[in-house]
């Protein structure tokens, strides 16, 4: 062969980047061509020089850098644990609004029910007056006793005057001297 290989091809040959056929051809050529062998040796020398230079200035792994990396990865691990915790509860978090809505509905609904079924904490006296008045009217006049004393009971709403017996001592207490028109009077 009267041709020579260029430095690019020899560089590829040096790095084992050629196809087997070309590689074999160059190998054979280098055995007989002084010029190409010189060029190839120069490529080899450049690589060796670079490796020697790198070896000469090779640095040890700094111990403080090891510590920095450990700290950074530990922080990263902490952050990922939190992220994992959130990820593992993604389904639970998704149901949280629905659960909150149910809880609120129960709370307000329960209050509503409680308000409907339980007596009011404080009942105005007029409620008793109206109720007792109605009850009084439903009772025959001959049996009424407390109706007359109604006005006197305004400050004692807990006393059910409509059902007081005419001889009940309480009548004398709350309306002394009144003529209740009872059968016994």
């Amino acid at each position, binding site marked *: 062969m009267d041709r020579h290989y260029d430095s690019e091809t020899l560089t590829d040959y040096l790095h084992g980047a050629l196809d087997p056929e070309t590689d074999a051809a160059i190998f054979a050529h280098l055995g007989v061509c002084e010029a*190409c062998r010189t060029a190839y040796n120069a490529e080899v*020398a450049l690589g060796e*020089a670079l490796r020697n230079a790198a070896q000469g200035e090779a640095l040890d792994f700094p111990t403080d850098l090891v510590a920095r990396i450990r700290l950074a990865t530990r922080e990263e691990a902490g952050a990922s644990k939190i992220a994992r915790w959130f990820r593992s509860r993604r389904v639970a978090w998704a149901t949280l609004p629905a659960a909150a809505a149910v809880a609120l509905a129960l709370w307000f609904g329960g209050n509503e029910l409680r308000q409907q079924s339980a007596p009011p904490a404080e009942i105005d006296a007029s409620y008793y007056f109206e109720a007792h008045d109605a009850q009084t009217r439903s009772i025959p006049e001959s049996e009424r006793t407390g109706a007359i004393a109604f006005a006197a009971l305004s400050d004692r709403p807990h006393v059910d005057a409509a059902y007081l017996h005419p001889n009940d001592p309480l009548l004398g207490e709350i309306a002394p001297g009144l003529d209740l028109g009872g059968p016994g009077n």
Partner: protein
Amino acid sequence: MAEYGRAAYNFAYRLTGNEPDARDLTQDAFVRVFRAWKSFQPGTSFLSWIYRIITNLYRDELRRRKGVFQQELPEDNAPQEYGGARPLAVDPIGSYVESQLSAPLSVALSRLSPDQRQVVILADIEELSYQEIAEIVGCSIGTVRSRLHRARNQLRRLVTKASHREDR
């Protein structure tokens, strides 16, 4: 970590050319390794994986600092033969190595573009294959070949210049 840490740190140092940046780069790379641990493919080279992470981080850092990264080189990398008897000049590298002048070679290496420097480090210092380098750098084998050739030519020029300066 010590096993790969030293290699990663030295690789980062050769890329950046200074220790503080190499430290930051190595630390960031190991945090990425930790974060992306599950994405590592068993059976592949762990060191190549770290080099790839370092290379990407270094590229990001260059972009961040300069705003513009080095332009891709054309892929005119087909092996070429030339006819005739072009004289192959005696390469100055041989005599350069003999005179133990490795420091100027390191300076010459630092003067290469980041793209070229990466490829030279991976090909000639780490002695990785073009395929491995292409995977690490994230480019085609042709681009690796092209960058390596240009880088080696550039190194030769710089070394020749330096040796001529010393001769004077």
